[in-house]
């Protein structure tokens, strides 16, 4: 005689691990709502940048200030990190915690390189006297790009805590959900950066 266990209520085995538990899947929907609010934060900052871009006062404008080299390198780093975190989630769907760990660490290394380059870029502008109280343009620039950089920096710290949890608990509906929301966050930051690269750096060079 076999004893068949009734399926846990709210449990769907046909779904990926992060969505299999009802409670955890609600948190993914909640995280989408957070991203919606973040879209609006960045929209406000882009609006401010668009309005203040011509107001350079006595400071440099985008044409004199920006260099393509670091901006393009930062873009390629962030695009690649978006790809690696995508592969981490692919590995998670395959149930391979080692793969998740390795690809997430690669993502963090790329993210850290991005933040390092951005700090270096800001410091090089400040060395020229182009600090954020120089002009309305520079205020808007530093707040927009800096808010994005702060998001990336926070994302790195967050992912480190997730990797510790993954190492201790393995892939469970809870750790899978947390890694999944981190991947949503990271891809979202890549989308924001694509618009920063286009609107701030590329359009800054179009007279």
């Amino acid at each position: 005689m076999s004893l068949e266990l009734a399926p846990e209520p709210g449990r769907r085995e046909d779904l990926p691990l992060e969505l299999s538990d009802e409670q955890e899947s609600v948190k993914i929907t909640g995280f989408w709502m957070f991203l919606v609010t973040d879209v609006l934060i960045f929209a406000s900052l882009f609006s401010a940048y668009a309005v203040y871009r011509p107001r350079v006062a006595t400071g440099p404008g985008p044409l004199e200030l920006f260099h393509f080299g670091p901006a393009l390198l930062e873009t390629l780093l962030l695009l690649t990190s978006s790809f690696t975190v995508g592969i981490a989630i692919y590995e998670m769907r395959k149930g391979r915690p080692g793969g998740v760990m390795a690809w997430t660490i690669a993502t963090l290394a790329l993210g850290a390189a991005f933040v390092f380059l951005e700090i270096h870029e800001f410091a090089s502008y400040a060395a020229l006297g182009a600090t954020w109280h120089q002009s309305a343009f520079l205020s808007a620039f530093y707040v927009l790009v800096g808010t994005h950089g702060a998001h990336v920096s926070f994302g790195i710290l967050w992912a480190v805590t997730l990797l510790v949890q993954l190492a201790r608990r393995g892939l469970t509906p809870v750790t899978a959900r947390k890694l999944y929301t981190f991947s949503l966050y990271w891809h979202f930051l890549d989308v924001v950066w694509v618009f920063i690269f286009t609107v701030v750096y590329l359009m800054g060079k179009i007279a």
Partner: protein
Amino acid sequence: MAEPLINRADPESEEAEAEGALAFLRPRFAEERFPWIQVWGYGGSLVLTLGAYFSVVRHVLAPQFLVAAILAMAAGQAALQLGVFMHLRESRGLSWQIVPLALAFFTALGMIGMSIWIMAFKSGVS
């Protein structure tokens, strides 16, 4: 190559019954043996980024068309990230996240567009 998207919703559940107006919210899941979709997504984003970069560096178009072209490429990349990497269509029930996200993008375009528009009347406002 990537296998087709499979609707894994329980056939008796409410999401499987969602027809007509709500059919676009039905969840979909990608299943594949090799992450082809991600590789293509990465390749596509590189092509769009370098395309935008070189079209600006080489001034391939008049300024106003160049701005329109690189903004279109950025929008393409955003769609690519959402569709390929963020699994926009995946959800436990209906993919309700699509609705507020679309509203947020609409609001964002409105805020940015209206700000630029109103500041175009420089002599009148400032």
